[in-house]
């Protein structure tokens, strides 16, 4: 115990001096010093030696004592079993929390046994304030009755002077513990979550904000019923006084869990229902991932504020630990929609969150039922990708895969008979493909929608890994090019094929076969892009190579002939084209026998039939095209781009023959098939739509015709293919419909646009001829023959240049010019033109053809 404390000040000072001096000495020296200094003064010596002895223990002693006292305070229970609190008797302690401890108690009356939870607020909080607020909130809270909300029943002050609140007792575990111990699935967690949201919404409807939503405040009973605790209690216990400055509010709000605090709460701004929505977002985050979005263990208020107000939480699907078995499964399900829902609920800005707990619950419901959710980073691309995922990626992707596999498969089969070197290459190609597909697997994609397009783009990037193996690389490029083509992405395909070609050219003569095919594929692509000059050159080169490799009567040669013929055909060189087509037709038997490409024969039939149609030989056209359709129906089994193409071509011929009903039916079939195959956007679909529109227009179904052609034009535009003959066909059709509908201004603009655009094609392109003819005819019809004349003269000139093999076309052009001249008063030139045209058209197109009728009409003016 302390001695008589009063000590002479001088003595006190002396003691200190001696102590400090002595403590700097060690062992012997110290002893000597003490002896010397305290000579004669035993009391002094005693104290000095005592002090020196204590010196080594003193630090730990004082520190430890204080520490122990601190522990004691921190952890002390004010309430024990058996204590009475109001009308209740404490059974046992349930939990300790930041605000105090919670005890299980029973009502002591004889009347009825009621189990309650009593929260005793710890020492240190302003109890009068608390009670006052409790009294204020009591009525509001008493009105809150909901199956999933634990009711607040009563409140008061214990004998020990501590405030307490009595609540409905909930026998359960916290929601996160419940989910963990049951190994609840994502679906189950979401359903629990929705129940919680609904309870929160009910409270909000009663103007009660929870403010402290967290797993510890949501208990789930053994039969799976969640109940929210402490509704409104945070408000009672929080210093809410507006006169109290922010810093103190924040301090007192240490009652709330920082991890669940919203930005506005941290900043001390007013708490609203949106605050609860935020907390629900954090709750969902934790239920899905097992962890909170922000770790705030050892941070200062400033740091907490920065993290919560500025730092974006990592997306739930990205934080799931690979070591946590349950959650690995979840990751795949969470990525995407659920990520977005959580993100939206946890938005820093109140206005960007869900407006209510009910809407958050709704979005979760939408997710559970497979509908698009409201929460999305970028709604339009999201919606389209959701659409694609639901319907089309499956098909397009499968198509892409099948092309790759087929392409590879063909190689594999052919190579099996060859050298080991080839087999080696094939294996490398295979393993590259396999790795490709691993990229493709959406489950590897970590929550992003992966389309076939993306796969290919990524694969293109990966290709440089094969720079050291040109043969493998070349073959891969080949395969990938065709996939792009199938997806209608011609530009990518072309660049790949170009790359391949340059690789091959450098390789020299070691793989002529590959080179020939490359040339053919590239020619094909160029042709589709209307680059006819290049296409023709490449085709001829390819043909020459194949002839060199395989001799004159081989299917590859036939293939190459077909490509060349088609190129010439589209270029407008009908005579040359027919020449090559007939060569191929001669080899039909070879095609059927040797070709690994099942389409070659029908492609030939189709192309040739088309040529016949273009030359006005409709019966021949119908015969060949009809045959093509039949064979493809039989061999392709269901939807196929080539079948759709054949049907469309055949239908066009039928239309020209005046068999409109049949044509319409077939074209509708073709359109539907293309939609199923390609989705909403594809150049071939657009072309088919135009054909159908044309037929409908011819049948007088103008409204639908207009709708379809507009759709087609839009599609061409979206796909960057507006500057094509096919698109211009549609434009002219629209112009015609508008003109018939009376909108001449727009019609004229469209006709002129068609002329301008087709001028950019190869000189004397049939499409230009058609455009000029349409414009001229239109101008004439609306009574502007002066303007029409030069246009029509040009049209006639081109027609004469290119349509020698198809006189009826020239005749049709002449008829328009004749009508125009007639209007200008020059009958001498006009009359013979008109009459001659009528005759020619009657002969070559028949009376049913639209052109014939037009000409007849013109002649009768």
């Amino acid at each position, binding site marked *: 115990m*302390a001695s008589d404390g009063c000590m002479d000040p001088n003595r006190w000072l002396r003691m*200190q001096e001696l102590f400090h001096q002595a403590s700097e000495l060690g062992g012997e020296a110290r002893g000597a010093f003490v002896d010397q200094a305290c000579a004669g003064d035993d009391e002094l010596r005693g104290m000095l030696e*005592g002090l020196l002895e*204590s010196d080594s223990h003193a630090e730990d*002693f004082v520190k*430890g004592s204080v*520490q122990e006292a*601190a522990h004691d305070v921190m952890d002390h229970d004010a309430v024990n079993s058996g204590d009475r609190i109001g009308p209740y008797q404490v059974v046992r302690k349930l939990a300790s929390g930041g605000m105090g401890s919670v005890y299980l108690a029973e009502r002591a009356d004889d009347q009825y046994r009621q189990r309650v939870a009593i929260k005793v607020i710890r020492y240190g909080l302003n109890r009068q304030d608390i009670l006052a607020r409790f009294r204020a909130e009591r009525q509001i809270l008493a009105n809150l009755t909901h199956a999933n909300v634990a009711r607040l029943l009563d409140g008061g002050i214990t004998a020990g002077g501590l405030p307490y609140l009595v609540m409905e007792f909930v026998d359960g575990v916290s929601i996160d513990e419940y989910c963990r111990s049951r190994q609840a699935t994502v679906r189950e967690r979401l359903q629990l979550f929705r129940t919680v949201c609904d309870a929160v919404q009910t409270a909000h409807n009663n103007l009660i904000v929870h403010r402290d939503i967290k797993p510890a405040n949501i208990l789930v009973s053994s039969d799976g019923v969640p109940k929210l605790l402490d509704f409104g209690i945070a408000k009672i216990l929080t210093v809410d006084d507006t006169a109290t400055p922010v810093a103190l509010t924040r301090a007192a709000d240490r009652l709330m869990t920082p991890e669940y605090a919203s930005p506005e709460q941290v900043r001390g701004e007013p708490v609203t229902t949106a605050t609860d929505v935020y907390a629900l977002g954090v709750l969902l985050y934790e239920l899905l991932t097992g962890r909170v979005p922000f770790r705030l263990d050892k941070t200062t208020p400033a740091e907490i504020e920065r993290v919560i107000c500025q730092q974006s939480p990592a997306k739930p699907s990205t934080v799931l630990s690979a070591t946590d078995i349950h959650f690995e499964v979840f990751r795949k399900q969470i990525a995407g929609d659920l990520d977005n829902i959580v993100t939206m609920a946890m938005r820093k800005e109140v206005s960007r969150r869900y407006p209510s707990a009910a809407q958050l619950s709704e979005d979760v419901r939408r997710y559970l039922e497979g509908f698009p959710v409201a929460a999305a980073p970028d709604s339009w691309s999201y919606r389209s990708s959701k659409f694609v995922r639901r319907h089309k990626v499956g098909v397009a992707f499968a198509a892409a895969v099948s092309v790759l596999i087929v392409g590879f498969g063909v190689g594999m089969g052919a190579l099996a008979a060859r050298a080991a070197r080839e087999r080696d290459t094939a294996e490398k190609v295979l393993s590259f493909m396999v790795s490709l597909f691993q990229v493709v697997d959406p489950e590897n994609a970590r929550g992003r929608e992966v389309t076939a397009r993306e796969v290919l783009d990524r694969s293109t990037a990966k290709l440089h890994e094969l720079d050291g193996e040109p043969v493998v690389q070349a073959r891969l490029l080949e395969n990938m090019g065709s996939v792009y083509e199938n997806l209608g992405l011609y530009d990518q395909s072309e660049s790949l094929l170009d790359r391949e070609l340059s690789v091959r050219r450098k390789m020299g003569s070691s793989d002529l076969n590959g080179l020939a095919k490359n040339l053919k594929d590239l020619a094909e692509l160029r042709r589709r892009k209307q680059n006819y000059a290049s296409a023709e050159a490449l085709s001829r080169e390819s043909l020459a190579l194949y002839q060199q490799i395989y001799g004159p009567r081989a299917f590859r040669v036939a293939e190459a002939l077909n490509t060349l013929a088609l190129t010439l055909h589209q270029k407008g060189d009908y005579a040359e084209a027919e020449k090559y087509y007939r060569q191929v037709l001669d080899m039909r038997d070879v095609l059927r026998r040797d070709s690994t490409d099942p389409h070659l024969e029908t492609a030939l039939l189709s192309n040739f039939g088309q040529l016949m149609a273009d030359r006005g030989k409709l019966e021949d056209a119908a015969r060949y095209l009809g045959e093509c359709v039949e064979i493809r129906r039989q061999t392709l089994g269901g939807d196929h781009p080539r079948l759709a193409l054949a049907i469309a071509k055949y239908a066009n011929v039928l239309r020209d023959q005046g068999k409109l009903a049949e044509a319409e039916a077939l074209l509708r079939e073709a359109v539907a098939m293309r939609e199923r195959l390609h989705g909403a956007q594809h150049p071939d679909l657009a072309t088919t739509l135009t054909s159908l529109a044309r037929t409908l227009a011819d049948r007088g179904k103008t409204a639908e015709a207009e709708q379809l052609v507009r759709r087609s034009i839009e599609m061409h535009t979206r796909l960057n293919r507006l500057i094509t003959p096919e698109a211009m066909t549609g434009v002219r059709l629209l112009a015609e419909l508008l003109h018939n509908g009376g909108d001449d201004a727009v019609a004229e603009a469209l006709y002129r646009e068609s002329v301008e655009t087709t001028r950019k094609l190869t000189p004397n392109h049939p499409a230009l001829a058609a455009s000029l003819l349409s414009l001229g005819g239109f101008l004439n019809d609306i009574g502007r023959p002066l303007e029409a004349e030069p246009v029509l003269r040009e049209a006639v000139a081109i027609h004469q240049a290119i349509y020698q093999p198809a006189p009826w076309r020239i005749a049709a052009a002449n008829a328009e010019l004749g009508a125009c001249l007639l209007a200008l008063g020059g009958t001498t030139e006009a009359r013979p033109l008109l009459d001659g045209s009528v005759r020619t058209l009657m002969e070559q197109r028949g009376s049913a053809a639209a052109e014939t009728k037009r000409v007849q009409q013109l002649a009768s003016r």
Partner: protein
Amino acid sequence: MADSQPAITVLLRRGSQGDQSAISELMPYVYDELRSLAGHYLKSERSGHTLQATSLVHEAYLRLAGADVEWVNRVHFFSVAANAMRRILVDHAKTRNREKRGGGIAKITFDEAVEVSSDSNAPITEIDDALNDLAKFDERKSRIVEMVYFGGMTHDEVAGSLGLSVMTVHRELKFARAWIHQQLRGL
């Protein structure tokens, strides 16, 4: 006082000027912080982590006043909080002692390992008495002990607060605690 200034600072200033009511006003918030901090540490998974009352106060300060409060006030806070902390610990111990004598069984549910041996520690009331005695003839030492062990202040901070050199603070502290030990455990 300006409304815009955080109230803690206001209280701190008043407390450092000897305003007892300011000190008692601060106490609940200090306690607040201490309790939640203790809760945090108790929940922490770091085994073997020793809870120090002083570090709690230190943390409490940071949470209450924020990192951007002036150094002067911070030191004032500590010195006030140190006193508050001492009073809390002592008051609580006295209440507990009364309860013990009354017969109720107080349960201490403290499950975190504490690296102190209770044999060698003294009840806080005794420490408190010793400090009171010390203050009768050497108030400065008593304050220094209080600031360091109850307030968690560094020697630099104590020196600055009391206008002393750091060396002086070292010496004072060394002597004072030895003295306390000797009084309570000395032979």
